[in-house]
């Protein structure tokens, strides 16, 4: 058993802890906007035209960054090549020490980072705190894994030869990150690249350059070679240019399915002068199902379903978006779920006790509105709260039932607070419905029959299956995370095999026999 210990969550149920978070947010507000301009070779430069705002209060300028373009990409690649040379040749334990200093840096600034995630992404406190812990966990976990990789497993040895295997950095890693876990996913992808000796060129999401910039600053403060980490905020231009660039060896991406497939196709075409095969590690969409068996305890199901579907406004990759209920419990569950959604609190992420905060941008509000309309046209709106705050990007948590098979709502990712409810005659029927999906990220099952749990597990294509709990909240080292099928490349962030995507193995065999003498 791995002895890794996850970073302790804040005990937000204690008033003193809540008070200190509120203070940190006030202090942060005094610093806004954050300087999130481009960083190459440790130096900031460029414009401030790209502005991120508080999703709950779009007038607030949270961070200012520039739109990086071809010139910045070229400079970053040049720096990264130098970085690969210097940083990549350091002994593994020296890199690990530096990385762990970055984890300490995050610990020192923990409350501030949490507050910034609340402010820039509208993520409620509990989730924001869990995210900072996850970021720290990624650094520590990959540090542990890098050391294990450095002490590579024994090869078979026979007299007269010496065999060993070394894992070398692949080169330059392009990290293309999402806004929904602006710190944790960025940190995980970046740390995996760096700790294995690669240089990283990091492109944050357009919506969250502030958090991304703070992460890069913490890495630099910890002593990472400034050439080994660059920060290229912008729209999707820098990402596209990096994917096409002949000097990029590895592309690590988390985002939509369409973008992931595009990256995969682009990366497969070698650019002129390219001397390697680009490797793509992608985490893409999902259409995650929560299945409720006939014997489930609805006292447990309802809160788990609400949290999985509407926590962080349904914007976690792992969020439940379909609930498939055994017909024996359908009426009971739909009534209780609808009642629970009616009493959910929609509000500013910074208010403790809020169930559903704002969505990231007006585009998301519009998408949610469109899907709610579709739901009411094709099915029944079981619950859709009337009272939501004005002024921010708020959506009412919505439950849609009675949809016809084949409805777009049953196949498309909504990425906002909307969940569908379906009646199924059996667990087998639920499993078949899930199996027909192109996505296979997370899934959940509530049952009190262990035999049903085993059968469902066998039939389940998803990357992360949760039994008798919600579908969100994977922990580093405990639930390595990532999807199968069109949900991703099957790589497991926070899991034992992840670093293998960032290295190239080299085996050396030395003949130790000379004139009949074995040395």
């Amino acid at each position, binding site marked *: 058993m791995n002895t890794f210990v996850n970073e302790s969550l804040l005990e937000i*149920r204690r008033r003193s802890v809540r008070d200190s978070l509120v203070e940190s947010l006030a202090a942060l507000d005094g610093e806004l906007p954050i300087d999130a301009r481009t960083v190459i070779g440790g130096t900031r430069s460029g414009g401030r035209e790209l502005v991120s705002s508080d999703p709950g209060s779009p007038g607030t300028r949270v961070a200012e960054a520039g739109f990086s373009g071809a010139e910045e990409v070229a400079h970053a690649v040049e720096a990264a090549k130098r970085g690969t040379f210097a940083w990549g040749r350091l002994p593994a334990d020296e890199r690990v020490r530096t990385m762990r200093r970055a984890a300490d840096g995050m610990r020192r600034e923990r409350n501030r980072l949490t507050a910034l995630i609340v402010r820039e992404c509208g993520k409620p406190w509990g989730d924001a705190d869990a995210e900072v812990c996850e970021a720290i966990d990624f650094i520590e976990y990959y540090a542990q894994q890098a050391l294990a990789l450095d002490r590579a497993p024994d090869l078979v040895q026979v007299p007269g030869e010496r065999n060993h295997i070394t894992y070398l950095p692949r080169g330059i890693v392009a990290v293309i990150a999402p806004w929904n876990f602006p710190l944790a996913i960025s940190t995980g992808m970046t740390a995996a690249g760096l700790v294995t000796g690669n240089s990283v060129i990091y492109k944050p999401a357009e919506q969250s350059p502030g958090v991304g910039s703070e992460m890069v600053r913490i890495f630099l403060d910890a002593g990472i070679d400034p050439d080994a980490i660059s920060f290229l905020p912008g729209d999707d231009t820098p990402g596209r240019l990096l994917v096409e660039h002949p000097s990029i060896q590895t592309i690590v991406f988390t985002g939509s399915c369409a973008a992931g497939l595009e990256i995969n196709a682009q990366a497969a075409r070698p650019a002129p002068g390219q001397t390697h095969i680009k490797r793509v590690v992608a985490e893409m969409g999902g259409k995650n199902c929560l299945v409720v068996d006939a*014997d489930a305890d609805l006292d447990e199901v309802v809160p788990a379903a609400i949290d999985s579907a509407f926590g962080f406004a349904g914007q976690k990759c792992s969020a439940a978006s379909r609930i498939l209920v055994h017909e024996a419990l359908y009426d009971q569950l739909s009534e209780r779920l609808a009642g*629970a959604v009616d009493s959910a609190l929609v509000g500013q992420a910074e208010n*403790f*006790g809020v169930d559903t905060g704002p969505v990231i941008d007006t585009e998301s509000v519009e998408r949610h509105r469109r899907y709610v309309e579709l739901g009411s046209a094709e099915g029944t709106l079981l619950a859709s709260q009337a009272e939501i705050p004005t002024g921010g990007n708020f959506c009412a948590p919505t439950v849609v039932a009675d949809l016809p098979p084949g409805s777009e709502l049953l196949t498309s990712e909504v990425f906002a607070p909307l969940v569908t409810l379906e009646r199924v005659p059996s667990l087998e029927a639920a499993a078949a419905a899930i199996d027909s999906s192109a996505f296979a990220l997370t899934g959940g099952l509530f049952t*009190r029959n262990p035999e049903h749990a085993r059968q469902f597990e066998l039939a389940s294509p998803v990357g992360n299956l949760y039994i008798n709990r919600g579908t969100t909240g994977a922990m580093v080292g405990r639930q390595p995370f990532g999807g199968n099928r069109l949900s991703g490349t099957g790589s497991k962030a926070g899991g034992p095999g992840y670093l293998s995507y960032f290295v190239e193995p080299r085996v050396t065999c030395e003949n130790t026999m000379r004139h009949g003498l074995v040395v």
Partner: protein
Amino acid sequence: MTNTILDPPATTPRESEVRAAGRLLITALEDEKPLSAARFNSMMVDRISDHEKLKAALFRLVDVTPMCRDTPEVADHLAALLGEIEDPGRGVRLMRRAAGSPVLAGATGMVARAGVKGMASRFIVGESVDDALGELAGMWRRGVASTVDLLGEATVTEREADAYAARCEQTLLALAAAAPSWPSRPHLENDMHGPVPRVNLSVKVSAMTPNARSDDPGRGAAGAADRLLGLLRAARDLDAHLHVDMESLDLRDTVTGLVFDLLSEPEFRDGPSVGMVMQGYLTDSPEELDRWLDWQNGSGRSTPLTVRLVKGAYWDHEVVEARQSGWVPPVFTDRSACDRNFEGLTRTLLSRLDLVRPAIASHNLRSISHAMAAAELAGGIDAIEFQVLRGLGDDIEKALAELGFRVRTYSPIGDLIAGMAYLVRRLLENTSNDSFLRARAGAENLDSLLVAP
């Protein structure tokens, strides 16, 4: 504000006094018939507890049985749950075969369901309040008071919260209508503070709102306020006692904040009689109790606050949640430390009889004996109430009643589905290796149970 009063009574008994009290209790216990149902039940629980995996399987069966639509489905679950036991003994193999056999499944399921029902009926006094009135009156005649608890599913909607509050109010009315016909039992209805209400209802704040959140005590308190307010008024008008149960630490600030807020209203200055629950397994419980005493002292209320002192029923939850989150567990993980703290809290309560009515709720012979001896120093038999759980503390209930103490039995009412969470928690609590009941069952000589923790 401090809690020191001018002349605090000495409430620390000598060990010899605790042992003397304990021997009285043990003598009363031994008057019981050797093969009472209670003894038989604790023997069965004891045997099952020796096999952790079997215990887990059977508890899970108890948990799911009410949700099974027919007896083959019960058998199906039994077979699957037993199938999880990796190293089955002969008994388990036989049970598994019976549950899995098409011929025997129906009968096995029927037996299992009957077993679960039988077990539930030991812990639950009736399916409805009308159902329970006869038994509650019978207890009263035997010299045992009660506090009624309405079992229910978790509250996740406003409608469920309304339904719970309405059931509570109906229960208060039904009890208040029935209680006057109960015969006079002076030691159950009077103490040094004056009259003790015959009608006593325990309620849960989390059942009165779907909005209880650990990170925002104010939200849950606001959500439950109107319903609890209605119940406080009903209790006041019916001369009933309302006891607000404590749940997991996640909701402690919600519960205490709400209760103190409402009780600060001038309309509740002279009643009703209200109680709260102090959980002695919480490491910060002494400070928390000081806070409560300060509050009561400054509240200007003319009725004492009843404080039910328990060890606490959410130990596993608190420890697991803490371990998963990387927190220091908020509870004592050492049983002796927990027991010592319980005794300390007992003495604190008995030293502030000007403010509180202490109700000592434990099945541990040592804890009870200590409280008996401490009460003797603080003001005699009148200074204290004991509380026990129906189905688990039946023999202790009888013994304490025989000794002339005011005993109140926590008496759950509800149907089987609603009762399961309660039932499993009680079973867990009393079959865990730390269980006080088990210690008693296994002790060679009962005197050894009176040793200071």
